[in-house]
């Protein structure tokens, strides 16, 4: 059969800098081609060159580049426009701005109809059919609403409906499930699957191997603008030939990866002295401040001493902009033992981040209480809490936003180092401490003079971890610490966190929407939904033998086969 899309040795450069090199691909009718790669791998640029959408600055070269019977290298602007939307549909990742936020959803879906000459009268009915076909309930209502009034899942369906408006033979979906909750993601993948079954050819672009695995017949793995591996999906994913593909597959955290390392980075080696320095406060207890006497009793890593953090039936209510009260956290209780990792997993809006803020005493619970080392932690005056704050640190999802924009890395970390006794050696001691912390998280002393903006996402997260460790805390609250990172970087950061926990015996409260990540890191797991804890237990119990319907739904929605197999 004739290929719908053929590219031979496709290269794309922007202002003479080549970002895609010699990519060859073929899309056969009715099949799905997956393109996998991390950010900067050139996968989106490759896809856009199939529609001539890389902009004026792009120079596209290829031995052959054909789409839906058109020679894309020689096509005029008008020919390209005739192709877009009519022969090849294109879907972007959902974002509030992937649909024009100032126009009604219906107008956005009608746009391809208008552009390609469907008369005005016929459009409205067609828009509703399309929305219904994309699985949008109440299409009449939705067509009149604005994108901001729709949930992420509905917006993604509307984007797909617009791309399919003229029934194109090919659909290119660029990260169609990113930023969606796992259950919604599963629904979108089903929608794409139904289209595939109906005979439409799909190019599916994702950073997520599991997503591609579910749909693609063939897969292309890209790195730095090159295809490193290409072949039938099952073969590439089960018997990867290229070392990068192997690393990528190994980096995905899951039940299977528990207890093993995800990255091929060497384990962190901390000498006894380094450990002493980093954990000094807990081991050599009884330092300057008075509250330590009580803290030291419950401190070093034996769980028998009782939990370091207790959250007792807390609730949190907010008044919304419409004046109604919403309960964001509802009767949540848990205890965190010294040295253990408790994972909190839930979708957006489940109340997990608010729970973290309450644990950090950055928000007060509306009801219930929190104890730190057996002593009151919530409901106190800030003055009485301040000295004890060093025992509980946070690693945020967005490290950059949590750094003072005026400060370099060294100053950012030094700011967190507790002021010990004064004297001339003080600033030197502080600088030494910053160096030790940077080395402990796999950076070097040279990074101290860099500005966080000049660091990569993974390096920033390492700085955030170093800052969190600066106070030698007993507890680290990790709020989606790896969600913004590429999977291979995520693997390194998770390995680092594991190494540090082993060396220092810190307790982790690990919050994530990603079931695989939570299963990989947690001893015990808490599943939250709409502010309530619906299930808790050991990681294996919760994910392999879920008791609650919602947990079952979550686990079933996971595209990752390894988890499902064992479940």
């Amino acid at each position, binding site marked *: 059969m004739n290929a719908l899309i053929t590219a031979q040795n496709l290269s794309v450069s922007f202002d003479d800098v080549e970002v895609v090199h010699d990519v060859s691909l073929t899309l056969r009718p009715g099949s799905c081609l997956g393109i996998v790669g991390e950010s900067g791998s050139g996968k989106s640029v490759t896809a856009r060159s199939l529609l001539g959408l890389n902009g004026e600055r792009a120079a596209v070269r290829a031995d052959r580049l054909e789409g839906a019977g058109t020679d894309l290298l020689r096509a005029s602007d008008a020919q390209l426009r005739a192709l877009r939307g009519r022969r090849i549909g294109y879907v972007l990742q959902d974002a509030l701005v992937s649909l024009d936020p*100032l126009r009604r959803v219906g107008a956005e879906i009608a746009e391809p109809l208008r*552009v390609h000459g469907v008369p005005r009268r016929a459009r409205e009915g067609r828009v509703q059919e399309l929305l219904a076909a994309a699985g949008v309930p109440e299409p009449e209502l939705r067509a009149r609403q604005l994108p901001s009034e729709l949930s992420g899942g509905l917006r993604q369906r509307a984007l797909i409906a617009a791309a399919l408006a003229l029934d194109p033979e090919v659909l290119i979906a660029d990260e169609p499930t990113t930023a969606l909750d796992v259950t919604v993601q599963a629904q979108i993948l089903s929608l794409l699957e139904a289209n595939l079954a109906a005979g439409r050819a799909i190019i599916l672009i994702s950073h997520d191997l599991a997503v591609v695995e579910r749909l693609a017949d063939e897969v292309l793995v890209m790195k730095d603008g090159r295809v490193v591996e290409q072949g039938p999906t099952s073969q590439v994913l089960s018997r990867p030939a290229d070392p990068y593909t192997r690393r990528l597959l190994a980096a995905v955290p899951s039940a299977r990866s528990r207890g093993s390392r995800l990255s091929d980075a060497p384990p962190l080696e901390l000498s006894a002295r380094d450990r002493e320095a980093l954990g000094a406060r807990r081991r050599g207890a009884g330092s300057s401040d008075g509250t330590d006497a009580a803290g030291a009793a419950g401190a070093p890593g034996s769980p028998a001493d009782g939990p370091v953090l207790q959250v007792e039936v807390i609730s949190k209510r907010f008044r919304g902009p419409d004046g109604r009260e919403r309960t964001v956290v509802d009767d949540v209780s848990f205890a965190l033992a010294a040295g253990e990792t408790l994972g909190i997993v839930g979708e957006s*809006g489940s109340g997990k981040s608010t729970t973290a803020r309450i644990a950090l005493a950055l928000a007060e619970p509306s009801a219930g209480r929190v104890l730190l080392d057996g002593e009151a932690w919530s409901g106190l005056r800030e003055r009485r809490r301040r000295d004890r704050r060093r025992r509980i640190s946070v690693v945020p999802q967005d490290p950059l936003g949590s750094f003072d924009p005026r400060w370099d890395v060294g100053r950012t970390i030094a700011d967190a180092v507790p002021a010990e006794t004064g004297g001339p050696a003080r600033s030197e001691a502080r600088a030494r401490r910053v160096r030790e912390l940077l080395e402990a998280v796999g950076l070097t002393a040279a990074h101290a003079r860099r500005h966080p903006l000049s660091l990569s996402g993974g390096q920033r997260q390492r700085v955030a971890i170093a800052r969190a460790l600066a106070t030698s805390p007993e507890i680290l609250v990790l709020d989606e610490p790896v969600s913004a990172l590429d999977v291979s970087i995520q693997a390194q950061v998770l390995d680092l966190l594991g190494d540090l926990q082993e060396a220092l015996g810190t307790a982790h409260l690990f919050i994530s929407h990603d079931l695989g990540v939570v299963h990989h890191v947690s001893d015990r797991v808490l599943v939250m939904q709409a502010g309530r804890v619906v299930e808790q237990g050991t990681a294996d119990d919760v994910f392999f033998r879920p008791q609650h319907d919602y947990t079952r739904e979550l686990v079933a929605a996971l595209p990752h086969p390894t988890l499902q197999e064992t479940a």
Partner: protein
Amino acid sequence: MTAETTSSAPATVGPVGPVSPEEPAQPAGPGPAAPPAALLARLRASLPGRIALRVLSALVLLWAVATIVFFLQHLVPGDPALAILGGASANPPPETVAAVRAQYGFDQPLLVQYADFLGGLVRGDLGSSYTMKEPVARIIAEQIVPTLQLTGASLAIAWAIAIGSTLLTAARPGLAARIGSGLEVVLAALPHFWLGVVLLVVFAVTLQWLPVVDDGPAGLVLPALTLGVPLGGFLAQVTRDEFDAASRQPFVLSALSRGTRPGDVRWRHVLRHAALPGIALSGWGLGSLISGAVVVEVIFSRQGIGQVLVTAVTSQDLPLVIGVTFVVALVYVIANILTDLAAVAVDPRLRTSIGGAS
């Protein structure tokens, strides 16, 4: 499972992974502030309610303006009755001074005068001018029309410059964008007193294309240009920045991927976003035009409240100054309400209960 129901938070979604848009601003609680807050929230939830609130706050604003100008008037060093009689140097007999004091109510306690002043405002009575011995309201009524014509024409010119410059040069490759934005900076920096003089000398005195002084439409051209061009440069900068930002948004790529023409995308999608900040600034812009009209009317010897104000300030005719100020504040408040309505017309998100009037 609630994931597919409408999520109302207009929070932007992060690059990867769902972020939780929890955490609204106000903590709930049974505090004393709760009932009015709830009432306010209910009013804000509907468009008529929001308009009512808006009008109410406009009235409060006008009351505050009136109060300030009233008490400023009484900060004046010296006796206002003397000012009416031609200043301290005129040396009028004490009986005359007393008569004037009684006539203008200066012998009343301050609070009574304040109440009279507010009562007068409600009836549209702004007192009478010290120097012209005429009701302030009548003077302003005669003079405000040419000023509104001038400012209206200037606002139109300013928007024409902003939209023209943006559509022609913004987000275009090459030199066009740089020239466009450079020109805007220069235009925005031109002071009225200089631009007006140059236009007057070049086009009216030297070339004699247009009359130096004329109350008809021909006489409106130079003053309106003088007033509108600098504001146009300013609005164009704001519009261009927003246009550049909007044209980098994914919805532009979405629209192009459907086969829409690039020009169509600029016009149908991007310009609408780009116009929003300019619209929001137009109420303020009209205010600055009225302030500029003071200078422009003097340059072109045009009738209008600007001229009236200059004369009144120079002769320290306070009732007239206060009257003009109050009317300008009124125009400013009305212009801002109109601006808000225009913003709602362009941005449908403001019509839903969530957008909220800020």
